[in-house]
């Protein structure tokens, strides 16, 4: 017995350590990926290869009033199959290239963009296409520096800037759109037609062959590999529609770095998958999946997919957004250090690619988020600390956890409930044995102005006593099996379950009605919740325990007759989208909803937050979590974080403390833990760990103004909330691969969370600029150079390497509170970190933090400026100005305000909030006077290094005591030398 049990334990260990990779496909196990890679390999061996696709010059039809044209496309391999091309240039210079099969057996899936895009983009009426002999051309930009070429023979799309190729579609000839066909027609056409293999060796022959012979065998492979049916593990995909994959090469001839295509647990600067220097053997995969205990370094697909890629060089940034909803594999190669190739292989769908011309990272983010939307401005409280666990087991448990936080004076904003609150995992339905008084419980939490977030997953327990399932079934809103008739049934937490088809428009209002907290007549609604309750959408890949690759069979049918395979990667976003709308619609006027999602797609940033799923409590996972959050941030989805502490495992105190260090610098900051783990709430830690974590949490709360201001910027401009080096310093090549340190918004704060065990100091790279950087905590001065500089900073367990770039003014609120809404009347501290030339600038954005009244002008947006009062002065003038009044059109998301009223209701409400302290770092000499409005203020000065000096050491520090200046008013403080 003893021997037996120890044997079992031994056997269990490997399973606990890592993902079962064989639950998920590699490229060679997916027919269309195999075909795509085989084509790529054959083409690589035959330099003479020319793409069979060409534009029929005679068919080009320019739009008379817009930068758009259509044309017919033919494939020399299938001369009878017709394709159409549609190319248009948007107002902001984004080029959209669409290709579809025309008059085929059926329509290819063409709705991916409609779910991803915020709205139909406006096509430019200024830019003009011109038709030439070989192609269609357009040039635009300030000096016509951007040129787009659509070549006819073969079909190729090139965007150049200043004559330099930025991106080329189909330059290698890997474009292939497998047209719809039937098994019978294929068999028939094969009869008596042997495919000649010769004639590929010379360029000349290649042309001849292209023109005359259908070289299907060479091009498509000589077997019908995975065309009609595929089996993986015990699952057979019947593939009733046959082959319909799409392959396209997208090359960046002048860019040596590519980023994007989340979600993968890998470096930000994407490692290669093909050719020389390949780090991985398999392509990056985009196929939303619930990967149990995923690897910390892999191209395996994870929970979400954003098919956007940026290529970057010191000269320019270029991007592409490939609006495709089906499984997609992406190979990345680097033929030379300064050029990058990519090959995209998708299972189904039309070609619908948006070229984002750049040329700066900031431009790219604008271009991408004009298409798919900027991140929603979160409710302010959502930026606080979230405490989660699978599971807080009862309402009294929740109350007890809250009590312990308060006893220890550790701030927290949100308590979460995982799936065990729900009776038999019937979401919305409280398990009254353990949660007898859910609304009272939520109200007890809300009494400290905190919130609760409760999970609602997409699988519905198939039992008629569950009103949500019953209604969805009766309304015909459930996803169907391959026969298109029977409701699909799968296995998830709730046992035998069904899934709502959110592609069905009939599901939308119905879903929204469920979240109403007041009775809705006959209609069931969640009266046992509150209007502030946040929602957590998990398992929306969808995760299905007994499905292929833990997901839904691909032949399942959604609204409109589309197969699940067509829209798999979009599925999770729709659930998130509708839940977010439902949460907002609980009140009139609506409140900003908080909905966390695990699965996502391009556009998900409009609906709430994401997290990196079920990570492991290892240092590797802690480190890769930082990179994954950065990757999501540059892909438009800023409100991102990873589970603090690691979902699986019991982190030792050192690891947990470091993980909090990561969390306080994540846009979304939540601690979470698996049901099998020990409890690890911060109050349970021994000293000194508990105090360290308390201080870290208080640091996060003190910086909420910084985070909120960064989110305002993201919500308006699309610039990420956390920014890797290449975004902030696009010309500094040393920083292109940095992904373990980053800047917070435009605040000038540079942080490098420690993600290694046993560290006492860290190296931080200072970007290539002649600038001073200050340690946030001890004001030590570091100086970078025009070539960049690596510095060493202290990083004991209680320390987080955090620097302020010279030239920044950082606004904080330094009074510890139990929750963030309790800080709304607290005074501000301004840290003025003078630059080399003695100036500094910072922004502060405030609004009510929970409604949309900011779109009606109810907010405060200030600019703080420090500058020399006179050219050679050693003093400084610090002033507060009204940015909102200067730039009302750029102040808030979704609307361009014509004017700003500085005495709006919100501003009046916070007019008595003051600046209680101003700290000026890097003054040259002790001031002779510090005045505001001619009145001398109280201040102290500590001698130290000046910003403009050459040496390092502790910066000089001027502390101005309580100038009693309102945060909403214009004012000046004059510091005279």
């Amino acid at each position, binding site marked *: *017995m003893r021997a*037996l*049990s120890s044997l*079992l334990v031994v056997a*269990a260990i490997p*399973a606990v350590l890592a993902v*079962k990779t064989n*639950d998920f496909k590699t490229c060679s196990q997916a027919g269309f990926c195999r075909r795509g890679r085989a084509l790529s390999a054959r083409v690589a061996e035959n330099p003479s290869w020319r793409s069979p696709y060409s534009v029929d010059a005679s068919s080009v039809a320019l739009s008379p009033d817009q930068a758009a044209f259509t044309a017919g496309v033919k494939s020399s391999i299938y001369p009878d199959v017709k394709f159409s091309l549609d190319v248009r240039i948007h107002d902001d210079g984004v080029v959209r290239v669409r290709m579809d099969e025309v008059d085929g057996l059926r329509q290819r899936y063409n709705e991916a963009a409609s779910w991803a895009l915020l709205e139909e983009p406006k096509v430019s009426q200024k830019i003009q296409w011109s038709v030439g002999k070989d192609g269609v051309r357009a040039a635009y930009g300030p000096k016509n520096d951007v040129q787009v070429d659509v070549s006819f023979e073969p079909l190729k799309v090139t965007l150049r800037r200043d004559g330099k190729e930025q991106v080329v579609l189909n330059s290698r000839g890997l474009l292939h759109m497998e047209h719809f066909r039937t098994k019978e027609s294929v068999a028939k056409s094969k009869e008596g037609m042997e495919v000649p293999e010769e004639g590929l060796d010379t360029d000349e022959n290649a042309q001849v062959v292209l023109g005359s012979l259908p070289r299907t065998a060479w091009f498509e492979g000589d077997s019908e590999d995975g065309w009609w049916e595929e089996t993986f*593990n015990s699952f057979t995909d019947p593939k009733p529609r046959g082959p319909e994959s799409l392959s396209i090469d997208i090359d960046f001839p002048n860019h040596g770095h590519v980023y994007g295509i989340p979600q993968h647990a890998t470096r930000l600067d994407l490692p290669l998958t093909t050719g020389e220097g390949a780090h991985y053997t398999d392509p990056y995969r985009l196929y939303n999946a*619930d990967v*149990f205990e995923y690897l910390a370094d892999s191209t395996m697909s994870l929970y979400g997919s954003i098919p956007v890629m940026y290529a970057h060089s010191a000269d320019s940034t270029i991007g592409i957004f490939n609006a495709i909803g089906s499984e997609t594999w992406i190979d990345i190669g680097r033929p030379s250090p300064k050029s990058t190739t990519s090959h995209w292989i998708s299972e189904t769908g039309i070609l619908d690619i948006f070229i984002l011309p750049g040329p700066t990272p900031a431009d790219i983010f604008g271009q991408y988020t004009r298409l798919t939307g900027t991140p929603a401005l979160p409710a302010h409280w959502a930026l606080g600390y979230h405490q989660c666990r699978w599971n807080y*087991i*009862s309402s*009294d*448990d929740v109350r007890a956890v809250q009590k312990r936080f308060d006893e220890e*004076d550790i701030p927290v904003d949100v308590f979460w409930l995982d799936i065990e609150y729900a009776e*038999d995992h019937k979401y919305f339905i409280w398990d009254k*044995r353990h949660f007898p008084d859910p609304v009272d419980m939520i109200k007890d939490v809300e*009494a*400290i*102005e905190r919130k609760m977030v409760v999970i609602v997953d997409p699988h519905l327990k198939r039992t008629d006593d569950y009103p949500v399932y019953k209604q969805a079934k009766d309304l015909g809103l459930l996803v169907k099996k391959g026969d298109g008739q029977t409701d699909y049934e799968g*296995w*998830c*937490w709730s*046992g*035998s379950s069904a899934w709502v088809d959110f592609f069905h428009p009939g599901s939308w209002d119905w879903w929204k009605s469920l979240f109403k907290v007041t009775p809705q007549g006959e209609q069931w609604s969640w009266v046992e919740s509150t209007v502030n309750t946040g929602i957590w959408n998990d398992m929306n890949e969808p*995760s299905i*325990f*007994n499905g292929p690759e*833990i997901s839904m069979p691909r032949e399942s049918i959604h609204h409109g007759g589309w197969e699940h395979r067509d829209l798999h990667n979009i599925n999770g976003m729709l659930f998130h989208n509708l839940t977010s709308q439902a949460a907002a619609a609980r009140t009139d006027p609506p409140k900003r909803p908080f909905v966390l999602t695990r699965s996502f797609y391009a556009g998900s940033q409009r609906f709430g937050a994401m997290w990196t799923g079920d990570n492991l409590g290892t240092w590797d996972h802690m480190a890769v979590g930082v990179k994954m959050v950065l990757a999501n941030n540059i892909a438009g989805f800023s409100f991102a974080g990873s589970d603090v502490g690691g979902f699986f495992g019991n982190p030792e105190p050192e690891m947990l403390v470091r993980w909090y260090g990561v969390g306080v610098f994540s846009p979304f900051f939540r601690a979470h833990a*698996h*049901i*099998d*783990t*020990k*409890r690890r709430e911060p109050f349970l830690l021994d000293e000194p760990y508990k105090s360290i974590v308390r201080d870290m949490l*208080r640091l996060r709360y003190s910086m909420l103004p910084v985070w909120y201001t960064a989110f305002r910027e993201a919500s308006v401009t699309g610039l990420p909330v956390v920014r890797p080096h290449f975004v902030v310093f696009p010309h500094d090549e040393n920083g292109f691969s940095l992904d373990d340190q980053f800047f917070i918004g435009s605040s000038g704060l540079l942080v490098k969370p420690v993600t290694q065990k046993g560290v006492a100091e860290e190296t931080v790279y200072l970007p290539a600029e002649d600038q001073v950087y200050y340690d946030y905590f001890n004001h030590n001065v570091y100086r970078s150079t025009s070539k960049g500089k690596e510095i060493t900073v202290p990083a004991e367990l209680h320390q987080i390497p955090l620097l302020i770039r010279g030239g920044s003014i950082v606004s904080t609120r*330094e*009074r*510890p*509170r*139990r929750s963030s809404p*309790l*800080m*709304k*009347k*607290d005074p501000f501290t301004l840290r003025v970190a003078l630059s080399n030339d003695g100036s500094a600038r910072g922004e502060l954005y405030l609004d009510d933090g929970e409604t949309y009244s900011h779109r009606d002008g109810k907010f405060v947006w200030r600019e703080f400026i420090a500058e020399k009062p006179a050219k050679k002065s050693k003093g400084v003038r610090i002033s507060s100005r009204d940015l909102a009044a200067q730039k009302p059109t750029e102040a808030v998301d979704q609307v361009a305000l014509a004017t700003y009223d500085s005495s709006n209701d919100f501003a009046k409400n916070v*007019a*008595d909030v*003051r600046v*209680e*302290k101003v700290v000026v770092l890097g003054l040259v000499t002790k001031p002779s006077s510090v005045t505001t409005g001619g009145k001398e203020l109280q201040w102290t000065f500590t001698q130290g290094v000046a910003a403009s000096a050459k040496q390092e050491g502790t910066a000089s520090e001027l502390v101005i*005591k*309580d100038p*009693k200046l*309102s945060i909403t*008013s214009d004012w000046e403080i004059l510091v005279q030398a």
Partner: protein
Amino acid sequence: MNPWLLLLLPLHVLASKGHLKGVSPELAARYVPTKKGSAETWQCLDGSKSIDWTAVNDDYCDCPDGSDEPGTGACPNSSFYCVNEGHIGSLIPSSRVGDGLCEPECCDGSDEAPGVCPNVCKEVGEAYRERVKAEEKLRKTGSKIRSTYVAFAQKEKKRLEDEIAQTEQEIATREKEVARLRDLVERTESLSAAALEERKQSPLYQSLMTHVTALKSLQREHMEHLEREKALGDILDNLRTGYNPNYQDMAVLEAVRGWEQLAGLPHINDVGKDGENENEEELGSDDVTTEEEEEAVEEGMWTAMQLEHQLDDLLNTDYEALLVEHDKHVGAPASPTSILFNLSAYLPDALIPQYEAIRDQVVAVLEMLGLAKGVSDRAADTSKQQKALNDAEHSLRLTKKEKEDAEKELARLFDPEWYGAQGEWKKLHGTCIDKEVGDYIYEVCLFDEARQKPVKGGSTFSLGRFASWNNAPGVEKGSPAYYSKQYYKNGAKCWNGPHRSVTLDMSCGLENAVLSVGEPEKCEYAFKVTSPALCLPLNVSGVKREEL
């Protein structure tokens, strides 16, 4: 001055006692200015800094120790004293001062700007006094019950001491009896041993002994297999009921399905939660009957039941007695010399004359002594005497054990680590209290074991056996905090988890009862329990004030 500047002045500072706002009575004497000419200064409490007297409670943190802002929220980690007139004063952390919320600890509302929080100290104070009264009443009534426990312990002391004395006597008597019987057996044995040895040489007996050894080995093997099978069954049952679908591990699912097929169980997920255990029971018992029926078909063969219950009896047969019995039955000359005569058949011819001579002499002697004839009866006598001895020894051991147990109980009676300094817990030893939560009844038999029993039948899990009182660091043995928790550890092991364990969170109550049961971590249970044993008499408790 701009009009808004007026707003910025901390109004509540002006409206109250200024410098002394938020200062606790103990520190009030230290909040006085030092005068130097017209200037008034003040020393931070840690002595680190001298500041203007006006900087005290000016809503700006000057002192590193935060002592200059007792009445505002300006300094982190400082404390604010609410006077709470009509109730009792209390300290709250500075993080709660001026946060817009009315603290229950600060019923006079002094932690917020005037007008924000009403003064509710009258009501709060009354309610508090009511509560104190009610608690005191509870304590009083509870402590009466407790005193009966203490009295019980005294009786127990007497009873145990008596028992020890009594068992001591008994032991002495039994020891004598054992000595007498041992002597008898030894003498009998020495006489009969030689004859018996002879008989044991019989091939039949030898063969029988070989069979016995083989059977014993088989039995041992069989038991091991049964144990293994049961252990495997338990593991698989745990897997089946407890496997975590989050692992989404198809191998686990396969294993569960395979086991269900083999054991004839329905798939766990197909079983409605309510009917689950019933179904299993039914199916389980069906299975047993089928097996028994099948086995019964083979004539003469033992059933599993017989194997389990009768094999031991069979193997416990007194073979020596049997050997003697055997001689009586097989029709061999029932003469006293049968073996001796027969032996010659096995001897080489050359030796026979010598042998016969010796034999005759021996037989003669035996007959003369009257022994030879009674060999078999004597052997039976020996084993009977042996049995008597065994029984006597067993009784002696039992009595000794009784005494030891009594001594142990007596030692524990007033041991703080067991029944408390007054023995107040002795009464509750073995008292079982339970609570039904969901599909299970959670039961704890104090000082013994905690269990989880399915309401609708099925196997009971041990949640652990009594291990200790609250031995957390810093908790003094025998203090009220020490008796506020009991730990039960090393219960049944969880699938993929630890051994189950329970923490009892105990407080004074009129009944011994489980109020609630939780599982804050997987397989680690927390019971809230009340007991009169925790109701200390009012005059005894010096901690009353702090507790409330």
